[in-house]
Structure formats: structure tokens, C-alpha cells
């Protein structure tokens, strides 16, 4: 990672927030020039149905009550905000708090989104849900929600991931789900999504595609964020209660970006709070074997959204690599691309070697093992440039400020 050569006086996000505007509750389909629906026509009606059902449900006190009840009595929310005192000592005194999404039922933040979408699937009268999974966490959560609500469940999982996360395959099967190993391409998350989309387009009549991260076509990024916002809302209230003030910084790992956007959302308008996203550095960004889409990708479309994307000169997707199966995704949710472009979120790739050597010459390996459990590393990446120009689509008006036109990023992967 290069050191920042100069710091801009004020970035777009600061200017925007100081104008009294809000970065919260962006409704999609666009986040700046990102997002949208780069999807086959066959699925547009289904996406419209999801969007419509989601919007009605959001406004329906009964749905919200049902969701809150499941969050509280089924997932175990609120999740703890635990101060890592010994880590603080180790890190020179900064108080560090971990938002414990791993304590939710099924073991990750994934359940928040899954319960919300599974309830929507029932509302739409669907009898079957499909899901992609990388680490298996989203698959386990999906299989769980399906078992809870009596839905058939099929989970697509890269054959390579099935192997490295065999325990989660067994859990899904125990929960009654069918796990389909995907042998195409890199045999990881991206290819599982491809096969899930192929299933969806074929079975959309009775099937909801329970996408597991804040990516994909509209309304998924905004909808998945909505179901995860509880993370940040709780964390913000908890940190105020425990410390009496807002944190200096919040940070999260970014695969597709669902745990991160859920956490960040509550703090987006708190301009004093720095926000850091950590992408999977894999074997090290210099090796090309990583999953640092925002840091090293360039805008493109994959799985329905325009966003930062690891791609070659031909626009072919570059296979991602991560020591964490859950972060092994070559793109990222579109709202993250936007927030990085306007400078609200600083993104840094993290890998066992580079993370350690950036902060600590002793090269202690650091690994992402839990959502939201990450160090508030002080180093940030070079300031992100502003959005690339993009035709303003006519159909939907963007809920977010128009980006200034600036030169295209020079980096490409």
C-alpha cells in the first residue's frame, strides 16, 4: 500500500455533511453512479415484486414488530458491545470495542438479513428460497430461517468452499437444506451467485433469492442494509452508554459489505466519526491474489450492480483470493463504492503480512475471523478519488448527491 502523498483539504463527504444533508437511508437504486439493475429482463418483475413487498413491509408496523420479535427472541439481539481491554493495553491505550454479531443465533450477522428476507418471501407467497454462500454462514442462516418458517431451501456453494467449510455444509444439511456444490469458475462465492441467479431465473415463480450481502441488483443493497442497520443502531447507543461519547472511528471487514454497511450506517452522518473498511488482502495485494475490490478494482457490473470490481483489461472478472472464505468476493456492495469515492469510508486491504507490517513491525499475523471484530487500524489508504462520470439514468432519480466529475482512477487491476 502506498502512503498518501497529500491530503485533500476537504473531501466530498465532509462538504456534503456540513451542508446539513444526510448520507443515511439512501434508498437506491443508485448510490452516486453505483448500483442499479444490470440484470436479465426475466428477473425484473421479481425484483420489482421484492422491492414493492419490502417497501410495504417497512411501513407496516406488524412486520416491524414481527422482525423485532425475531431479532430479540430468536437471534438474541441486542448483541453485546464488548470492550477488549487487553487489546487496548496492547494497542497503546485506545479503547477498542467489539460488536458481537458472532453471538447471534447461527453465529454471524447474516441472520439479521435472512430473517427479514425470509419474512418477505412468506409475504410474497414464495415456498422456496435459494441462497449463495461463501464461508457457509449465510447458507446456515438461510437454512435456519427456512426451517423456522417452513420454506424449502437450496444453497449454492463453491465446491472449493464446500471443502474448506465442510462443517457448515453439514450444518445446512442438518437443517434440511440442499447444498449444491458449484464447480464452475473459481468454485467460490462469485460462481455460487451465478448458479443461484440461474436457478432464480428458472424458478422465480415460487422462489425468492435470499441474497446474502448488500450487493446485487436493486433493491438488494438498500434492503440488505436495512435489515443490518440494527447493528449500527445498537452499537451507537451502546458506545454512548459505555463511554458517554461517540467513537473516534468504526471499522468492519468488507466482503460484499453487509456487516460493514449495517455498522457504518448509524455513523454516516456523524462527521467526527472516521469510518474504515478492511478488504481481504489475500496473499498480499502485491501478489494480485486478494479480494480488495474497492482498493484495487475499477467500476464495472457484476451480479446486477455497478460497483468496484476486480476485472482484467477485457472486463473479465478476476478471481478473488482471501484467507477468509467469507470475504472471497471480487466486487462489493455499491453503497460502499460510493462512500469510498466521496471519502466517507477509508478502505484498506488487510492480509496476514501486510496488516501486521503496516502497524507493527513484529509481523504478528492478523486474521479476520469474526464480523465487526477488527482493529481500528490507524493507517488509512490513499484518499479515494471521486466518482467516475456516469450517465444519469432516467428511470430512477438518485437519492444521493450527484458526484463532481473528476479524472478516472489511474489504478486498475
Amino acid at each position, binding site marked *: 500500500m502506498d502512503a498518501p502523498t497529500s491530503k485533500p483539504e476537504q473531501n466530498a463527504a465532509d462538504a456534503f455533511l456540513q451542508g446539513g444533508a444526510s448520507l443515511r437511508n439512501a434508498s437506491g437504486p443508485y448510490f452516486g453512479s453505483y448500483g442499479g439493475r444490470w440484470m436479465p429482463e426475466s428477473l425484473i418483475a421479481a425484483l420489482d415484486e421484492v422491492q414493492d413487498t419490502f417497501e410495504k413491509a417497512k411501513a407496516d408496523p406488524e412486520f416491524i414488530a414481527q422482525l423485532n420479535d425475531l431479532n430479540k427472541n430468536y437471534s438474541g439481539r441486542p448483541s453485546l458491545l464488548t470492550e477488549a481491554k487487553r487489546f487496548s493495553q496492547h494497542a497503546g491505550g485506545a479503547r477498542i470495542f467489539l460488536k458481537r454479531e458472532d453471538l447471534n443465533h447461527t453465529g454471524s450477522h447474516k441472520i439479521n438479513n435472512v430473517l427479514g428476507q425470509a419474512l418477505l418471501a412468506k409475504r410474497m407467497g414464495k415456498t422456496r428460497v435459494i441462497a449463495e454462500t461463501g464461508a457457509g454462514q449465510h447458507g446456515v442462516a438461510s437454512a435456519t430461517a427456512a426451517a423456522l418458517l417452513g420454506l424449502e431451501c437450496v444453497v449454492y456453494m463453491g465446491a472449493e468452499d464446500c471443502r474448506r467449510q465442510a462443517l457448515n455444509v453439514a450444518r445446512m444439511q442438518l437443517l434440511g437444506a440442499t447444498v449444491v456444490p458449484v464447480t464452475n469458475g473459481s468454485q467460490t462465492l462469485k460462481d455460487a451467485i451465478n448458479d443461484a441467479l440461474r436457478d432464480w431465473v428458472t424458478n422465480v415463480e415460487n422462489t425468492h433469492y435470499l441474497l446474502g450481502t448488500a450487493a446485487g441488483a436493486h433493491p438488494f443493497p438498500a434492503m440488505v442494509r436495512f435489515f443490518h442497520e440494527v447493528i449500527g443502531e445498537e452499537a451507537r447507543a451502546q458506545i454512548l452508554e459505555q463511554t458517554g461519547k461517540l467513537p473516534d472511528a468504526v471499522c468492519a471487514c468488507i466482503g460484499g459489505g453487509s456487516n460493514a454497511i449495517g455498522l457504518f450506517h448509524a455513523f454516516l452522518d456523524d462527521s467526527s466519526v472516521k469510518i474504515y473498511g478492511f478488504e481481504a488482502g489475500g496473499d498480499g495485494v502485491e501478489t494480485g491474489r486478494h479480494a480488495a475490490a474497492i482498493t484495487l478494482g475499477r*467500476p464495472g457490473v457484476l451480479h446486477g450492480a455497478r460497483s468496484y470490481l476486480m476485472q482484467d483489461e477485457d472486463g473479465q472478472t478476476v478471481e478473488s483470493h482471501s484467507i477468509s472464505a467469507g470475504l472471497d468476493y471480487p466486487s462489493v456492495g455499491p453503497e460502499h463504492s460510493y462512500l469510498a469515492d466521496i471519502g466517507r469510508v477509508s478502505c484498506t486491504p488487510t492480509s496476514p503480512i501486510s496488516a501486521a507490517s503496516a502497524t507493527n513491525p513484529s509481523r504478528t499475523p492478523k486474521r479476520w475471523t469474526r464480523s465487526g471484530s477488527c482493529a481500528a487500524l490507524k493507517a488509512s489508504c490513499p484518499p479515494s478519488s471521486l466518482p467516475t462520470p456516469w450517465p444519469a439514468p432516467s428511470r430512477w432519480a438518485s437519492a444521493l448527491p450527484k458526484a463532481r466529475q473528476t479524472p478516472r482512477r489511474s489504478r486498475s487491476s
Partner: protein
Amino acid sequence: MSENTASKAAAAIDRAKAEGRAALIGYLPAGYPDVQASIDAGIALARNGADLIEIGIPYSDPVMDGPVIQAATTEAIANGFRVASVFDVVAGITAVTDAAVLVMTYWNPVMRMGVDEFSRRLAEAGGAGLITPDLIPDEAAEWIEASDKYGLDRVFLVAPSSTPERLEMTVKASRGFVYAVSIMGITGTRQAVSGSAEKLVADTHAAGAERVCVGLGVSTPEHVREIAAYADGVIVGSALVAAVRDGGVDAVGKLTKDLSAGLRREPAQA
């Protein structure tokens, strides 16, 4: 539907119509098994009865494709296929045949090259336009601008799930023809043609489309005969790719001849 008289696709379909038959549209992936072989296969298509040729760009994430096309395009990429070669394939076919040659592509490779540059080069190669399986008119402002600029056809897709409003909007945005997917699903050979196709074609015509062609799962002369009875063109993909795979250029020529036998309109069956 923009009635640009320069539409090569429209012209090809109209020529078939003038012969009292539906048009045959054959799909082949560029660079499969290599660039020259795909040119030869395209020429064989044209010489054996295809009115339009759809050249697919092999792509890393072909979400609308079934196993036959996935396997072929994966192999093409593994063999070193580069996106810019698609222009060589188009030029190679248009140089020696009258067929209208469209490129069918997922959107990211076009975006990566730049929509304007891609369009310019396609037009220079003699291409008719683009079929865009994962680009809907809602996201197509840049493409609409570039295709107008370079006189290219814009073939958007309609599906059995499309609402009347979307049919109308898509028909308006298209030029050349409208691609009606016969079935909710992905490419691949199927036993029978879905019953929803005929209704979709009628609805799309009713929404203002002059030319509606049907594809997805069409693989036998019987399928062709059935669809030719109500559509302006019939699109065959996986069956031709399997022919390249199993028998090369000769097999493509033979299958195309067989398929084209079904094109002539017969009296509608009771």
C-alpha cells in the same frame, strides 16, 4: 421501435419475410474453439440458411447460459480469447456473407472497453448491433446514445414475466428486433418449446414491435417449425454450439440446413 432503415437485422428479417418465412438466427461463441474456427463456423451458418448470426463474447460470469455454452466459452477464454477479437470474427463473417452479424454480450466487457469505442469498432467491423442479455433499457442510456451514433441495432430481451409497461418500454428502446425468451430460464436444449412463447410474441407485437424473434431452448427442426408459425425469427444457440463441439464446421452446416427446413410458414394447426 426505431424504424431506422439502416438496420441490418431488420433488413435480414424482412428479406426472410419476403420469402414467406421466418428468419433463422444462429448463435456461436467467438473464439470457440479458436478465432479462425469460429469465423469458419459463422460462415457455414450463413451459407446453410441462417439469416442473422449472433456472435457471443465469452465471459467469465455468464449467468444466462446453461452448461453447453458455459463449457464452450470457458474453453475459449482458457484458450486465450481476448474481447477485441470479436471484431475480427464479425469482420471475417461479414466479409464473405450477406448475413447480418450481431454480437451478443454481457455488459461488463463493453463497459470496460468503453461503450463508445466498442460501438465504433463493431460498426467498423460490419457488425449489425448488440444483443444484451443483462442490460435492460433502464440502464442503457449510454448504449442508446452510442448505437444511435454508429447506426447499430439494439436488441433487448423481453420475457414471459415482463409487464405490459415493460414490454412497451423495451419495444420502444429496441431496434432491429426484439428478443423474446421462450421460457423463464437459461440457455440450453430442451425437449419442448414453452407454451408461453407464443403469447409473449403476440403481446410484444401488440406492444408495437414489428419484428419479434424467439430464442432459449430451441434446438430441433420441430421447434423451429413450431415457432416460425408465429414469430419473425427463430434463434438457435446451444444446439449449434454442441454441433461445433462434436462435429466442427461440417456439423454446423448440416444442422443449420436441417433447422432451416422448418422456417417456411405452414398453415397454423387447428
